[in-house]
């Protein structure tokens, strides 16, 4: 183990402070008894209670959850299919163009994506609401899913699928019974990524949301414009907690799997 030098400690402190100081402040002030955000007046959980009684926030939360679940599910299906085709079907005419086009939304400014989707929805006469947000979120999160899944598929042994075909599967069964169960972890993390992206998207949602379909980020953003309230702090703290728990759970699961696999492999070596 290397000793921590003064430089290392400083860099570490500065880096973490930069990343987490704002969030720590937010969390602390969510437990503030005072209505004034900047003045500390003792510990209280009253804002969490207020939050749960606020219909508008609860509605927004419900809309956000619906949008996130539906859009990430559709994006996972489409993104997995796209990744599968691009990785497996080797070279076909226009392959580079297709793979480029899949990844383009990753670098496309969100304002442009939002605006173009808005124009499209107006053009085809689709009323703005939950449906339009779902469509918009599916569009941009699909490429993230496709990136995650294709990176798994690249290391997937094609012989496994050939073995399935050889043993009597058609192409669809081979995918369903062999490929999908094996790449499932990547598909699930793609879904989680799409879910998170949908959960915290503000820019695209504000383009395509209608009056009856305000998502949480839009709600927070518009509330903050009238002044930061302790309620917002409480809401944000809850979101941070949810995300933290999710990330830690996911990494614990994958770590446990890795440890189990290693133990199995060692046991198999000994059995030889």
């Amino acid at each position: 183990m290397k000793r921590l030098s003064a430089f290392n400690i400083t860099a570490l402190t500065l880096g973490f402070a930069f990343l987490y100081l704002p969030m720590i402040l937010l969390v602390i002030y969510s437990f503030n008894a005072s209505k004034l955000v900047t003045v500390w007046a003792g510990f209280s959980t009253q804002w969490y209670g207020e939050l749960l009684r606020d219909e508008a926030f609860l509605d927004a939360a419900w809309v956000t959850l619906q949008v996130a679940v539906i859009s990430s599910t559709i994006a996972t299906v489409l993104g997995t299919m796209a990744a599968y085709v691009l990785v497996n079907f080797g070279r076909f005419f226009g392959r580079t163009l297709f793979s480029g086009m899949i990844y383009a939304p990753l670098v496309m400014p969100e304002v442009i994506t939002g605006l173009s989707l808005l124009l499209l929805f107006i053009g085809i006469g689709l009323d703005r609401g939950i449906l339009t947000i779902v469509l918009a979120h599916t569009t941009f999160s699909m490429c993230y899913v496709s990136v995650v899944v294709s990176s798994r598929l690249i290391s997937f042994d094609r012989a496994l699928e050939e073995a399935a075909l050889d043993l009597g599967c058609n192409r669809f069964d081979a995918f369903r019974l062999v490929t999908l169960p094996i790449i499932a972890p990547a598909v699930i993390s793609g879904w989680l990524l799409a879910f998170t992206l949908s959960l915290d998207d503000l820019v695209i949602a504000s383009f395509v949301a209608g009056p009856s379909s305000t998502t949480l980020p839009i709600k927070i953003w518009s509330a903050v414009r009238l002044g930061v309230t302790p309620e917002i702090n409480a809401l944000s703290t809850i979101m941070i907690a949810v995300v933290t728990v999710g990330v830690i759970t996911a990494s614990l699961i994958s770590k446990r799997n890795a440890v189990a696999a290693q133990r199995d492999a060692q046991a198999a070596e000994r059995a030889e």
Partner: protein
Amino acid sequence: MPLLDALDLKEQSNVSSPVFAPWDDPNEKPLIRFENVTKRFGTFTAIDDLTIDIYAQEFFALLGPSGCGKTTMMRMLAGFETVTEGRILLSGSDIAQVAPNQRAVNMMFQSYALFPHLSVWDNIAFGLRRDKMPKDQIEARVAEMLKLTRLEKFARRKPHQISGGQRQRVALARSLAKAPKLLLLDEPLGALDKKLRQETQFELMDIQEGTGTTFVIVTHDQEEAMTVASRVAVMDEGRIIQVATPANIYETPNSVYVADFIGDVNIISGTTKPAGADRYHIDWAPNQAPIVATSQNSFSEGQTCHLAIRPEKITIAKDKPEDTENAVQGKVLDIAYLGNLSTYHVELPGGQVIKAQTANTRRISNRGITWEDPVWIRWNATAGVLLEQ
């Protein structure tokens, strides 16, 4: 002993004729026939106008260096590659239009390709389930396969919970479960260490004979091909150079390529001079007596030829041997002691190095030949094979 059941089966099966050689019987119908098959990938020709027959119950080995097209041949049989020209017949009918999942052909993959998310039992049952076989029959068949490959104890394990040798047996059991007409084995023992590989070769042979399945094995290991196969096809650059039984491949190779690929060989090049019935004198070096060799093939006066002699057919001695057809003096350059054998590298006056091999039949003996010693090497006229190319 492993696979007693397989051996029992063998007695019941129809290996009745003492010599199994369907390729010598003109009335025998081949199970597989490659008819002028060519396979191109873009501009690269992987298989070049190849014609060959493989018979039922054969253990047929495709042997060659990597890139010689042997794996492509196997993948065409399995249905993973299409034929560019020509056709492949299985039991007399063209299989070009038959999808891989419809062929009575199963394959054992080089990487084994075991399904990691399924147990050993489920891996073996996978193909049977696809055929909608009744549950009790599946159970009986899987149990039979587990017994055949001695995997009963591991049925509930996942592939990553068993050893490499056991994985190899699972892969074999899975590919045999559907009782295919033809089993393809792609470098089946490549991932095993040497000792385990040798044991497994005999197991494979037992299972092949026991089940009566036709096996086509792809390998780059000539020893493996020689051990397991009824016939060996030596391939190079998309063409088959020679097809013969292991003994014929070794003792009567048809070219320097085959002689050199299979085992160790000395090649002496020269020009022929006919000397009576099937006898030739070969001028191989200036100021040296010609070598005497016999050959069934005819050579003309002054034709370029290559004499291939296996090292074990050359005897080495300190003193000049009497009454021998060929004897040349040289100097010991190197001695390789292999335990059971010793190989002497002898440099001849022309600079050519000849390998001579002797079996170390006695445990402690002083052969009295050491580095730099002048020695005599000798061999009979029938010891070598005279080749045109």
